């Protein structure tokens, strides 16, 4: 008979026992039914208690077993039947509700691709994802999940990446773009070259991290476990003492049941698993209970700049031509940068592409001048593209642009000069833009009571000043070396307490390790960042930081409610036994209800993912 069968039969028997007890009273038939109930529902409990005892483990099962056997000895057949039934039924309901608290993680696992469509020698074939190998061509059609991390070699499509980043807006992917395993193709068609397959894929790594995280114990949990290790045996001693003093066996047995630490031991892990599961669904990985507890306590949010507060991708913000129009200028500059690997050159090419200004022409006689720029020839004319140092080196005339350069807007951005015939013919202004959501995130941090929002950057002081002023940060430090960042984190810790450092997770490993909580942003696909940080924001949205912070605080509050509830119920029951003549079965009922209540309270945490956006809880 399965668990469910025992529950159903047990329920029928216990109801029958109750009816007989209330109608005809203790007759042989009543006692027989009660004994049958006890045997059916109590046997597994006693079996477990005895089995554990062989390993010298004293658990809750033993407390209940002693109580049941004691009740039978003193002829309390109804109490024995009710207690075993309630304990078994409670356990059944608890495992069902526990599954709910763990469902976010289970659902995430279910998103693992089950099949992969590959192209082999011109033929399409369906294989199991574990048969995939690096370098294979994988085809993805609408409604299918990407089965490996890879790069698009054919086609274009909209991908739903919410399984990885938690962000539900579809993302457009075309040739050359990266795609992640586990994402869903909404519309279009893609052929990718597999780069990371199976356990190596980002999605598999995320699952692994979440799985590890849900069982990484919080300090509070460790404390409770140590406590209950001694607590449970001491209850038996206490009950024995109570019996010896009062000679009231009924009371001593009741004491055993109500003192079960069931609700207390489950209070913390159930909140943690609900919090970790919910946040994972939103693209935030929190690595375990300790991280959840610490994140809720942070006083300082210290940000790296490039790629964290800013997008990390320099973009052209304006183009000014002198004697030629901006389109012409951009076309020429993009041709000149054709072979350039420099981020600023890439930004110029990207902008030209965006405005449909890419020309097929190639530059001639390209000469790179490191740290300054480059020279080239195009249609018989020689050009210079670069910074002020380049102008100086070639004695290029630039006085006619001073007016534009003085404009406030350009002060903290990078200006690229384009010159020909010893005269500047245009300016291309490039900046690494602050993320759109950054100001809002800083405001929310403040309203959540985080004392300081700080920026620690290796970038120059001028840029740091500008970004800090724009975001209204409490403090900033520019031109920091990695060692300086570590020192700054330590100083903030000593001045304000818990510090979270938010960075890209690659360049700031030492300071991430020094901070109380290291948070990496945009880390999907980046193994180093995923491994080195405590909290991983998989998506590119900085606002996930606010979600992480709120979930962790709710989880900590939830744990406290649970612990309080567990202790309060135990206290009330104890008073009931000592002063009110509380019966065994009522004691068990209330105890089981308290366990259920604790689990249901934790399940409440999962509503966070469903709340209206932008609400500070």
């Amino acid at each position, binding site marked *: 008979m399965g668990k469910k069968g025992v529950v159903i039969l047990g329920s029928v028997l216990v109801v029958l026992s109750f009816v007989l007890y209330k109608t005809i009273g203790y007759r042989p038939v009543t006692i027989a039914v009660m004994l049958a109930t006890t045997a059916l529902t109590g046997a*597994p409990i006693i*079996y*477990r208690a005895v*089995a*554990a005892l*062989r*390993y010298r*483990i004293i*658990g*809750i099962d033993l407390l209940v077993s002693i109580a049941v056997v004691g009740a039978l000895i003193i002829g309390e057949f109804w109490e024995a039947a009710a207690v075993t039934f309630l304990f078994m039924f409670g*356990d059944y309901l*608890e*495992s069902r509700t*526990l*599954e709910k608290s*763990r469902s976010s*993680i289970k659902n995430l696992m279910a998103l693992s691709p089950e099949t992969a469509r590959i192209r082999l020698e011109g033929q399409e074939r369906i294989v199991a994802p574990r048969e995939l190998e690096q370098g294979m061509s994988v085809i993805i059609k609408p409604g299918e999940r990407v089965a490996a991390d890879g790069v698009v070699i054919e086609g274009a499509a909209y991908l739903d990446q919410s399984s990885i980043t938690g962000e539900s807006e579809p993302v457009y992917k075309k040739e050359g773009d990266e795609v992640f395993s586990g994402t869903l193709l909404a519309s279009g068609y893609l052929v990718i070259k597999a780069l990371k397959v199976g356990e190596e894929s980002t999605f598999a790594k995320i699952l692994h991290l979440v*799985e590890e995280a*849900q*069982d990484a114990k919080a300090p509070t*949990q460790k404390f409770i*476990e140590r406590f*209950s*290790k001694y607590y*449970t045996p001491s209850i038996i001693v206490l009950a024995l003492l109570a019996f010896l003093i009062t000679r009231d066996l009924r009371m001593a047995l009741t004491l055993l049941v109500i003192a079960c*630490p*069931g609700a207390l*031991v*489950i209070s913390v*892990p159930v909140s*943690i*698993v609900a919090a970790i599961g919910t946040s994972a669904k939103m693209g935030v990985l929190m690595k375990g209970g300790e991280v959840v507890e610490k994140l809720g306590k942070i006083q300082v949010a210290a940000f790296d700049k490039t790629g964290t507060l800013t997008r990390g991708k320099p973009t052209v913000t304006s183009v000014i031509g002198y004697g030629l129009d901006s389109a012409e200028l951009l076309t020429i500059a993009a041709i000149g940068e054709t072979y350039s690997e420099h981020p600023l050159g890439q930004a110029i090419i990207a902008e030209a592409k965006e405005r449909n200004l890419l020309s097929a022409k190639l530059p001639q006689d390209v000469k790179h001048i490191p740290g300054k720029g480059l020279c080239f020839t195009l249609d018989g004319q020689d050009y210079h593209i670069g910074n002020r140092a380049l102008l100086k080196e070639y004695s290029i005339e630039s006085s006619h642009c001073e007016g534009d350069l003085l404009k406030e807007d350009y002060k903290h951005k990078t200006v690229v000069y384009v010159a020909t015939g010893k005269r500047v013919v245009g300016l291309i202004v490039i900046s690494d833009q602050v993320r759109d959501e950054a100001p809002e995130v800083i405001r929310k941090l403040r309203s959540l009571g985080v004392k300081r929002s700080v920026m620690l950057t290796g970038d120059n002081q001028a840029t740091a000043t500008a970004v800090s002023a724009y975001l209204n940060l409490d403090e900033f430090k520019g031109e920091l070396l990695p060692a300086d960042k570590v020192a700054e984190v330590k100083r903030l810790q000593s001045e304000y307490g818990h510090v979270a450092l938010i960075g890209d997770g690659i360049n700031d490993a030492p300071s991430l390790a020094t901070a109380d909580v290291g948070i990496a942003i945009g880390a999907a696909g980046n193994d180093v960042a995923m491994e080195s940080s405590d909290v991983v924001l998989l998506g590119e949205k900085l606002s996930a930081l606010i979600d992480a912070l709120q979930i962790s605080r709710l989880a900590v509050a939830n744990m406290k409610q649970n612990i309080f509830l567990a202790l309060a119920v135990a206290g009330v029951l104890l008073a009931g036994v000592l002063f009110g003549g509380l019966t065994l079965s009522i004691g068990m009922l209330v105890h089981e209800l308290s366990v259920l209540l604790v689990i249901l309270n934790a399940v409440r945490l999962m509503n966070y993912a469903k709340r209206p956006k932008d609400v500070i809880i």
Partner: protein
Amino acid sequence: MKKISLQLETLSCPTCAAKIEVALKKSQGVIDPEVLFNSSRVKLSYDENLIDIEGVKKVIAKLGYGTLDVKEGL
């Protein structure tokens, strides 16, 4: 020495997890058992000269818990 991971039926109380862990620790040939409550899994290494997978499952079964699945060679 071999490493395995066992998926158990849903563990409903952390003390059950602790119980299984202690029992495995006291079993000969089992090395560093770790019972994960939330994922209802057991991770351990074992010395194949002293115990086999069936033996490990038996220890857990004796305590009253079923094993659903075993993954080898982690």
